[in-house]
């Protein structure tokens, strides 16, 4: 202890120590966020009536006062980002995968692009030569528009108002049906363009059709030389005909995006949900455990034997949780019998969602496989960013 007037000699080592001293290195000082804030930051708590803490804390300086960095800067992102493919269906048209370490804003951007901004081919103009069925022309045309076509839209160009329909931007199909059920397998691809003749004054020149194909699509697209373009599924019902009714039409498919009309959406649907997390806040034993296990329709809980004939409930399959909230309802949603105590179970089970873990499901209609669709969607978001950067420079 120094008394007043005495000089204290500060050595060089002391000076270096003082310069490099950082209180956060001290082992007793807790680093990171306190657990309750960490919970708020990373989990959505699904309470009985509504979820709370749903907004993601995106500001990088949100926890600067505590010395914690809230950013997902590129290096952290590269280390922490993971994709796990869970399932690809047998026909390859449904894909389920997990994306971990990404924010909802970007996951939602991917979902929106999958639904609305990926191009596909769909029937836009339907030339009806003969329709004696009870299905009206316009209804028939609208139904034709919704038929999914198994053609890769990347091979084709957009058809704008000024362009002529040619082999690079139009696919022509013909339908001539007299049977009772008109299915998509009766749609025949015309690789040489339209057969319908446009009426023109000249009888000398070659008759003009509604498309001007310079060569057969079988030549311009070698992929289709041996496999003709067909609708994605052959058994889609287009119309039903009575005896003597006939439909004769020609349909032209062009490239478009879902924003203009939903028929151009390449996915039946694409959605994501956040990973559910079910936590038992206290011990649930014996009879209560049985009731809890019985209450859940998705079999999220399991019974575990503790020995001495006592049982305990554990969370076995949290991923299956659909947030039906039967496990937190009064009395598990069972009918209240007289004499049975009504209990509130909200304290025992905590239903949560992990904010940065998304279970994506993409169902493609058939034009492209779902993994290609997702890659294209990411590319489109990249292109949008590039366009903004180009406009700013």
């Amino acid at each position, binding site marked *: 202890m120094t008394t007043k007037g005495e000089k204290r000699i500060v050595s060089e080592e002391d000076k270096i120590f003082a310069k490099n001293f950082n209180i956060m290195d001290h082992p007793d000082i807790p680093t990171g966020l306190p657990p309750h804030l960490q919970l708020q930051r990373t989990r959505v708590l699904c309470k009985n009536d509504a979820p709370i803490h749903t907004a993601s804390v995106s500001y990088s*300086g949100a926890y600067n006062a505590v010395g914690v960095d809230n950013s997902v800067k590129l290096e952290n992102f590269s280390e922490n980002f993971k994709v796990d493919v869970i399932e690809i269906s047998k026909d390859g048209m449904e894909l389920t*995968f997990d994306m971990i370490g990404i924010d909802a804003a*970007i996951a939602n951007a991917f979902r929106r692009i999958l639904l609305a901004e990926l191009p596909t081919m769909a029937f836009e103009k339907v030339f009806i030569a003969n329709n004696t069925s009870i299905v009206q022309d316009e209804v028939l045309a609208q139904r034709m528009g919704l038929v999914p076509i198994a053609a890769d839209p990347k091979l084709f160009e957009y058809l704008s108002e000024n362009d002529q329909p040619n082999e690079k931007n139009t696919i022509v199909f013909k339908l001539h049906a007299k049977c009772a059920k008109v299915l998509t397998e009766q749609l025949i691809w015309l690789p040489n363009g339209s057969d319908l003749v446009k009426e023109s004054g000249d009888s000398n020149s070659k008759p003009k059709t509604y498309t001007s194909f310079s060569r057969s699509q079988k030549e311009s697209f070698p992929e289709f030389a041996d496999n003709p373009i067909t609708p994605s599924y052959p058994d889609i019902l287009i119309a039903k005909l009575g005896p003597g009714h006939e439909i004769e039409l020609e349909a032209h498919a062009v490239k478009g995006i879902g924003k203009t009309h939903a028929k151009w959406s390449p996915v039946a649907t694409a959605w994501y949900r956040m990973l559910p997390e079910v936590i038992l806040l206290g011990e649930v034993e014996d009879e209560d455990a049985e009731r809890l296990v019985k209450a859940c329709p998705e079999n999220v809980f399991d019974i575990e034997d503790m020995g001495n004939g006592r049982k305990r409930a554990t969370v076995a399959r949290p991923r299956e949780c659909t947030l039906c909230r039967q496990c937190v309802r009064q009395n598990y949603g069972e009918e209240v019998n007289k004499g049975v105590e009504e209990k509130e179970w909200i304290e025992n089970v905590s239903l949560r969602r992990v904010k940065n873990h998304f279970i994506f499901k993409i169902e493609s209609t058939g034009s492209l496989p779902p993994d290609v669709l997702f890659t294209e969607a990411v590319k489109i978001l990249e292109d949008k960013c590039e366009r903004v950067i180009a406009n700013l420079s």
Partner: protein
Amino acid sequence: MEHGSFTNDSFASFTLAEEDHTLANAVRFMLNQELVLLLLSFNPFLPRVTFAGYSIPHPSLECVNVRVQTTGDPAREVLKDACQELMLMNRHVRSVFDKAVSEFKVEQARLAAEEEKKKKAEEDELKKQRDLLASMDIESD
């Protein structure tokens, strides 16, 4: 289109035409994440942005207004950097996704091949047993 001040370029509103929530929310998120690295301070990361938000003036008009207010850097630069980071992030997502899908497909193919082998082995076993029984019958006759 940038609406800002001639004297102070650290805050501005940008109008993005033909855009909607898809890009705007993603850019808003990246703007909020913008950081600059300082050395020798208690917290070495300093946020570059004090305010970042977007609004859609009318749903029928395809346009988005993005407002950026920064801690000194020109707003235009910060927006550009945010878009750049978003592009890099997308590229990374794409590469990780492609790798995961191809690994999964390889794994599926391997499992399918193993199943095939197992099935074949079982069938061969059954055949052997049947032949054995048949030969035993002949002997007994």
